[in-house]
């Protein structure tokens, strides 16, 4: 086994363990942290594919931002585990059916007859000065510029929608305007009163 293979199997093993942890652990926080581990191992495998930009972006976006917010929400939930398990036996047949359907779809798409070294040849190794980031940037802003722009507009719409959903002015809330606070001068607020001392 070459060094590369050892690294691949270590990362893949961690990835599978993490993925199992996501669905198997009883505590939702543990599940979320297992998902973080899975992302991390995935980025290790992607590094082996010389896709360092994608690998680091996976950690940056999913581990660094998305999962933090996920954890944020999960930590504040008070999940009643026993109540959630009540319907377990009742929904088991439906669950098994859906799981089987998903498995079938996945085997059809990513089954061994579609992947493997005999179907897709091993990608050629690049030289040491190959820059994945540069290549991606070039492709993204030339060949795929329209899909890229459309994707960014869709994301922008999603941002606007999310803000619009939560934005509401409550009349009872007091807001402060820092610009106004900074502009306050002594003359606006302070009145110096000169008067003679009181006589006894």
């Amino acid at each position, binding site marked *: 086994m070459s060094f590369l293979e050892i690294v691949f199997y270590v990362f893949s093993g961690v990835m599978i363990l993490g993925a199992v942890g996501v669905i198997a652990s009883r*505590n939702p926080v543990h599940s979320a942290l297992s998902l973080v581990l899975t992302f991390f191992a995935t980025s290790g495998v992607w590094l082996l594919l010389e896709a360092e930009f994608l690998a680091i972006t996976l950690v940056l976006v999913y581990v660094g931002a998305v999962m*933090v917010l996920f954890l*944020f929400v999960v930590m504040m939930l008070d999940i009643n585990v026993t109540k959630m398990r009540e319907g377990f036996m009742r929904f088991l047949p439906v669950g098994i059916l859906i799981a089987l359907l998903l498995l079938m779809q996945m085997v059809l798409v990513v089954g061994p007859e579609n992947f493997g070294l005999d179907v897709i040849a091993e990608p050629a190794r690049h030289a040491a000065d190959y820059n994945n980031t540069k290549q991606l940037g070039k492709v993204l802003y030339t060949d795929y510029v329209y899909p890229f722009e459309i994707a960014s507009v869709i994301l922008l719409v999603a941002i606007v929608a999310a803000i619009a959903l939560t934005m509401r002015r409550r009349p009872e809330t007091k807001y402060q305007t820092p610009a106004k606070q900074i502009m306050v001068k002594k003359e606006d607020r302070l009145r110096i009163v000169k008067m003679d001392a009181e006589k006894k």
Partner: protein
Amino acid sequence: MIETVISFAMSIWEWLPLWAQALFGNLFFIVIIMVPLMLSVAYVTYAERKIIGYMQVRIGPNRVGPKGWLQPIADAVKLMFKEIIIPTNANRFLFLGAPILSIAPALAAWAVIPFNDGWVLADVNAALLYILALTSMGVYGVIVAGWASNSKYAMMGALRSAAQVVSYEIAMGFALVGVLMAGGSLNLGDIIAKQQGGVSDWFIWPLFPLFFVYFISGVAETNRAPFDVAEGESEIVAGFHVDYSGMAFAVFFLAEYANIILIAALTSILFFGGWLSPLEGLVASDSLLLGNGMHWFLAKTAFFIFMFLWLRATFPRYRYDQIMRLGWKVFIPVTIVWIFVEAVMAVMQIGPWAV
């Protein structure tokens, strides 16, 4: 005598298989980076207490050793021998894992920091992204610590910190986008090489607003005063590490200071030319002290560490909603506008884009 020892050592080295050479070689460099870093962390804590002491017209620690120089050692020994208490209903595994989650990214980021021309452990071409990814990992230590301690104060500290770090990361990321536009590379060595030619060629001038945003976001990312609501003493005792004691607490402390040094080092690399001498072009480049060299990098880093301490001694703590306002409504627009300005500068070929 010495020559025989060296040749003997070399023959042992060559006798080792390749993987062992790679392993021991990297371990050797890791130790060379980590030991001074840990010592600096210890003495930054001392410097902090001394500097803030003088700023508040006190003397600061002066009992242990001459002028208090052994204070950090005494602190470390005390923390090492203190009992680690695990709260009864705490999640034991995550409670003990959180400090490691906190310090590992802070140390791993040093792999790509160039200390001098070519003096870098891992010369990867996506170094800037790597740094950004790792600094964004640090927040897990805080969140997990807050959750695993099963305490309300710790939880509140963790939630505050999570929201704050995620918000300031956006501004920080945009500031770094500006730097990579100017440097034309994600490799830190290349970014420094692009700033060659004297003080006027440093990125601080064309990217001044980004430097401002980056440094302040860095202060916020490390949860330092005036952005230290995650451990606001007056509100939530000590925030996410209320329930930690002994070495587990010390590891959080180490991580915080390692992060401070990291942000200071990055500021000096990205905006102040790293190891480049400010006298470049004025003196001969082979001059030992005035020419380019690691000492300039260390001096610039030390200055920014001092800035961290200075900020802490000067400003009162931000209120939480004000922190959020600053991050979202001030810094992010500033960076977006400046990235646009940079694009215009690139088209007009001004500053670092001059041909």
